[in-house]
C-alpha cells in the first residue's frame, strides 16, 4: 500500500486504521482485487446484449441460452502462484475458477486451460510445464469437472513468467441463479468448507500484484494448498442448497478471503455485517485477526441464510461431510464490524473496501521501439514447403497436445462431442438438440507487434473456431495478462488491447461478460509480451449431427479454402517463431469479412464432414492436421501456405457440397494418397504423423 492509499484509508475512517483494518484495505485495494490500474479502461468493453443475464462485476458472467437454461462463464489467471509453486499454483487456479462459477448457482461442466511457458530446452521451463500440467490434472480430475480443451504456447518471454489461465463453463436453470448479496438485516452468515489455516495468506497482494525477482521462491507460503476433495463436497453441498432454495446469497473466499466475502456482499446489499472471528473454524492455533481475515481458500464459501433456514443449511453441510460455522449476522446500516477475542478489531464502512479503492489513470506511451519493429523486413525465404511444414509439425505448440490433454479427464458428464485438439470444443446440452461451443485464444507475439490488431484478431479467431463446430458466437470473457502497469509502454499496450478486443466484439455483436486482469507479469524488469486471452462461448442451435470432425476426411473428397486470399505477410506467425524472427505489421482483421465467413462456416458445419480454421502454421499445418487425424494424404495448390492472415478456414467435403469457385471460396485440391503435397512439395504422411504426434515428448526429452 502506498502512502497516498494509506491516507485515503485514514480519510475514510477519520482515524488511523487498526492492524486488522489495514490488512483488509491492503488486500482489497491490491491490484488483483481492485483493478485500480485497469478499471478506467475496462469501461470500454461492450457488455450489453439481450441475452446477458449477469455482466461483469459478479463472480461470473451469465447468459441465456434458451429453454430455461443459463450458461455461466469466467476466466482467471494463476500466473504468479504457478511460477512460485507450479503444481499447487495451477491446481488452486482450477479450484478458484470452479468456485466462481458454482457461486452463481451453476454446476461447472467444463474447464479450459491456457498455459504459456518458455522454451522446453531449458530445464526450469520443463519443470514448470510438467508441474502445471500435473497440477491441473490432479485438481481437475479429482474435483470431477472435465478439462475439455485449452491452449499451449512457448516463447522466450514466458521463461521468467509462465502464464496459467483457466476458464470454466457452468450450466444452471434460470430460477437457480444466485448472487453475491448479503440480504436484509437479520440474515445469518455461515462459513462453509475447509477450516482456515495459515496457507494462502494474502496471495492476492503478495503474489499477484507484484513483480518477480530472485527471491520469489520465498513467497511459497502465500500459495494455497489445494484440496479437490473438499471442493467437490462443497460443490455438491452448494448445489443442494440452491436446489432447496436455502440461501439468500453466496460469496467465495478467494482473493482476500473473509475480508472480501463479508464486505462485497454487504456493499452490494447496502447493509452492514457483524462478524465474530472466534466462531471461524480453524486448523491452526493462535491465528491472528489479520491472518483470519486474509487467508484465501478455494474450498471455503460464505452463505447468507435467512434465520429460519439455518438449521436446514447446517444439515446439508453435515450430509456432505463439510464443516460449517455460523460466524455473523447482517445488520442495518453499512458498517462491517469484526470481533476477535472480546474486542472489536475492525469497524469500517463495508462498501469502502470494494468501492472506494483507488482508481489510477496511469500514463500511457507508445513504445519507442515499435516503429522499428513493425518496419523490420522479413528475411525468411521458403524454398522447400515440405521441410518448412516438417519443422512446424515438430513444434510443441503446434504438434498434438495429447501429452497434455491425455492427462486430463476430458470425457466426464458424457457431453464432450468435440474434445481437445480441435479448433473449438463442442458440448451437447443433454435433453435438447443444442450444444455449447467454446474456443480460447491468445497470441503474445501477434499482440507484441500490434496490440490492437492482435487482440481484435483473437476475437475473430475464437469466433471462427466456434463457427466451424456449427455454433454462433454469444459472449466473451477475457484474461488480460500484461507486464508492469507502472510502465507507460505497458499501459499503452493494455489500452490498445482493450480497444482491439472491444472493436472486434462490437463488430460481431457480442458482449464481454467478464474478465480478469493480471498485471506485473515481469521478471527482473523484463515484461512479457502483451498476452490477452479470449474465451468465447458459442451456441449451436441445432447442433450439427454428425458434427464436423478433423477425422472425417476420405479419399476423393474436395478441399476448399474459404475466406479472403492470404497475403505473404508472416508478421507474428509460427514460421517467424521457427526462424527466430520477430517483426512486421500483422494483417488487420476485417469486421465485414469476419461476419460473412462466420456465417458461411456455421452453414457448412451442418453439411461438410471436415471444417478447420486456418491459424498457427497457416493453411499448410491446418491441412496436415486433417490428413494426420484422418489418416489419409492430400494434394493442394495454394499461394502463401504459411500465412496466418485472418478469416480463413478449410473445408473437406464430397463433390457438390461446396459450390461456387469465387473470390472467397476456392477449390484448392483433393484428399488422397499417402503424402501431404503442397505446390508439388511432398511430405510423407507417416513422417507428418510421427513429427506431430511426438512433438511434445521430443521437446521434453531435450
Amino acid at each position, binding site marked *: 500500500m502506498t502512502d497516498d492509499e494509506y491516507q485515503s484509508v485514514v480519510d475514510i475512517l477519520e482515524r488511523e486504521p487498526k492492524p486488522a483494518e489495514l490488512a483488509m484495505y491492503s488486500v482489497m485495494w491490491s491490484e488483483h482485487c481492485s483493478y485500480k490500474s485497469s478499471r478506467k479502461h475496462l469501461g470500454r468493453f461492450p457488455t450489453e446484449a439481450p441475452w446477458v443475464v449477469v455482466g461483469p462485476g459478479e463472480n461470473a458472467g451469465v447468459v441465456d441460452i434458451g429453454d430455461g437454461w443459463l450458461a455461466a462463464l469466467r476466466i482467471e489467471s494463476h500466473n504468479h502462484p504457478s511460477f512460485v509453486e507450479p503444481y499447487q499454483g495451477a491446481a488452486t487456479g482450477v479450484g478458484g475458477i470452479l468456485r466462481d462459477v458454482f457461486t452463481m448457482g451453476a454446476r461447472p461442466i467444463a474447464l479450459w486451460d491456457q498455459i504459456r511457458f518458455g522454451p522446453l530446452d531449458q530445464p526450469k521451463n520443463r519443470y514448470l510445464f510438467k508441474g502445471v500440467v*500435473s497440477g491441473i*490434472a*490432479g485438481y481437475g*480430475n*479429482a*474435483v*470431477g469437472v472435465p478439462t475439455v480443451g485449452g491452449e499451449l504456447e512457448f516463447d522466450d518471454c514466458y521463461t521468467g513468467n509462465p502464464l496459467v489461465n483457466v476458464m470454466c463453463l457452468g450450466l444452471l436453470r434460470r430460477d437457480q441463479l444466485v448472487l453475491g448479496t448479503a440480504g436484509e438485516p437479520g440474515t445469518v452468515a455461515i462459513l462453509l468448507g475447509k477450516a482456515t489455516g495459515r496457507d494462502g495468506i494474502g496471495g492476492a497482494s503478495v503474489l499477484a500484484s507484484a513483480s518477480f525477482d530472485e527471491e520469489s521462491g520465498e513467497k511459497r507460503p502465500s500459495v494455497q494448498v489445494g*484440496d*479437490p*476433495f*473438499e471442493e*467437490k*463436497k462443497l460443490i*455438491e453441498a452448494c448445489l443442494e442448497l440452491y436446489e432447496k432454495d436455502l440461501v439468500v446469497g453466496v460469496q467465495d473466499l478467494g482473493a482476500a478471503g473473509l475480508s472480501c466475502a463479508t464486505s462485497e456482499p454487504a456493499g452490494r446489499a447496502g447493509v452492514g455485517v457483524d462478524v465474530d472471528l472466534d466462531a471461524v473454524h480453524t486448523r491452526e492455533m493462535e491465528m491472528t485477526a489479520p491472518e483470519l481475515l486474509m487467508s484465501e481458500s478455494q474450498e471455503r464459501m460464505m452463505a447468507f441464510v435467512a434465520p429460519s433456514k439455518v438449521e436446514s443449511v447446517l444439515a446439508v453441510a453435515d*450430509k*456432505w*461431510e463439510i464443516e460449517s460455522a455460523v460466524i455473523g449476522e447482517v445488520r442495518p446500516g453499512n458498517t462491517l464490524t469484526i470481533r476477535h477475542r472480546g474486542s472489536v478489531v475492525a469497524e469500517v464502512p463495508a462498501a469502502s473496501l470494494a468501492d472506494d479503492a483507488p482508481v489510477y489513470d496511469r500514463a500511457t506511451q507508445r513504445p519507442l521501439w515499435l516503429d522499428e519493429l513493425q518496419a523490420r523486413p522479413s528475411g525468411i525465404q521458403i524454398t522447400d514447403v515440405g521441410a518448412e511444414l516438417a519443422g512446424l509439425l515438430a513444434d510443441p505448440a503446434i504438434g498434438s497436445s*495429447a501429452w497434455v*490433454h*491425455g*492427462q*486430463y*479427464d*476430458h*470425457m*466426464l*458428464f*458424457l*457431453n*464432450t*462431442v468435440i474434445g481437445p485438439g480441435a479448433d473449438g470444443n463442442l458440448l*451437447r446440452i*443433454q435433453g435438447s438438440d443444442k450444444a455449447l461451443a467454446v474456443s480460447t485464444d491468445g497470441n503474445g507475439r501477434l499482440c507484441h507487434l500490434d496490440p490492437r490488431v492482435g487482440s481484435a484478431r483473437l476475437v475473430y479467431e475464437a469466433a471462427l473456431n466456434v463457427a466451424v463446430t456449427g455454433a454462433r458466437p454469444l459472449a466473451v470473457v477475457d484474461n488480460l495478462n500484461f507486464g508492469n502497469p507502472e510502465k507507460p509502454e505497458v499501459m499503452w499496450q493494455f489500452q490498445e488491447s482493450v480497444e482491439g478486443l472491444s472493436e472486434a466484439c462490437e463488430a460481431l455483436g457480442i458482449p464481454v461478460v467478464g474478465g480478469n486482469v493480471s498485471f506485473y507479469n515481469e521478471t527482473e524488469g523484463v515484461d512479457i509480451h502483451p498476452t490477452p486471452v479470449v474465451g468465447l462461448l458459442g451456441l449451436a442451435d441445432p447442433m450439427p*449431427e*454428425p*458434427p464436423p470432425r478433423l477425422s472425417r476426411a476420405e479419399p476423393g473428397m474436395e478441399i476448399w479454402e474459404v475466406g479472403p486470399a492470404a497475403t505473404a505477410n508472416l508478421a507474428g506467425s509460427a514460421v517467424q517463431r521457427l526462424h527466430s524472427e520477430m517483426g512486421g505489421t500483422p494483417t488487420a482483421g476485417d469486421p465485414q469479412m469476419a461476419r460473412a465467413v462466420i456465417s458461411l462456416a456455421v452453414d457448412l458445419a451442418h453439411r461438410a464432414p471436415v471444417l478447420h480454421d486456418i491459424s498457427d502454421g497457416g493453411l499448410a499445418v491446418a491441412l496436415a492436421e486433417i490428413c494426420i487425424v484422418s489418416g489419409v494424404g492430400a494434394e493442394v495448390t495454394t499461394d502463401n501456405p504459411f500465412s496466418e492472415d485472418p478469416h480463413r478456414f478449410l473445408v473437406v467435403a464430397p463433390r457438390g457440397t461446396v459450390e461456387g469457385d469465387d473470390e472467397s471460396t476456392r477449390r484448392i485440391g483433393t484428399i488422397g494418397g499417402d503424402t501431404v503435397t503442397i505446390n508439388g512439395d511432398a511430405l510423407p504422411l507417416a513422417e507428418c504423423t510421427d513429427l506431430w504426434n511426438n512433438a511434445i515428448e521430443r521437446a521434453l526429452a531435450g
Partner: protein
Amino acid sequence: MRAAVVVFPGVNCEHDVVHALTALGGEAELVWHRDTDLSGFDGVVLPGGFAHGDALRTGAIARFSPAMREVARLASVGAPVLGICNGWQILCESGLIPGAHIANRDLSFICRFVEVEVVDTNSILTRYAEPGQRLRIPLNSYEGSWVDPSGAGRVVLRYVDDPNGSQDRAAAVANAAGNVVGVMPHPERATDELVGSTDGQVLLESFLRAAPVPA
C-alpha cells in the same frame, strides 16, 4: 433390473452411469454411501471417481462406508455387483475381487480410448459379448494398474496394448462366481456414437440382463 449406484463423497461418474443404464432400458438410482438398506435393488454399481478423496489409498476408506456391508451381502448371494474404475479399487480393498491397484507404469494420469479384448464371457459384464470381440472404451485413471500375487482373479477383459502395466494386461477381473466384476475403463462413456463409441453397450447390457437375486 433395478440397480443401486452408490455415491461416496468424491465420486463423480454416478450421473453418467445412471444416464447410460437408463438409456439402455434399465432402472438405476443413486444411493448415498451411509444408506444401509439396499433391499429392493437387483444389482449394484460402484461408479468411478475419487471416493473419500482417495485418502490413504484408493478405496481404502470407502470399504468402511456403511453401504458396503450391504454390497458385500448382495455379492455373497449372487447379485450382480459392478465396480467401475475407482469402484473396482473399492471392490479390491473390500476383498470382493482379488488383488489391488498401483499407479500406472508411466506415473501419469491416462485419459484416452483404449482397445480391450473379451477373453472370458462367464461374468455379469461380458456374458453377452463374443469371445475375442474387441471393444473401444475410454480409460480414465491414475492408479489403474492391477496386481494380484494370489493369482485368484479371473481376467475377463484384456487390453490389446498395455497402457498401464496391469498384470496380465487385465482391464476387467471377475470373482470366481462371475457376479462381481471390476473394470478399469468406463463402459458408460462408450454408449453413444456422438461422444465417441457405442462399444460399452454390450457390457452394460450384460450387467442389466444378469439374473436378479432370488429374494
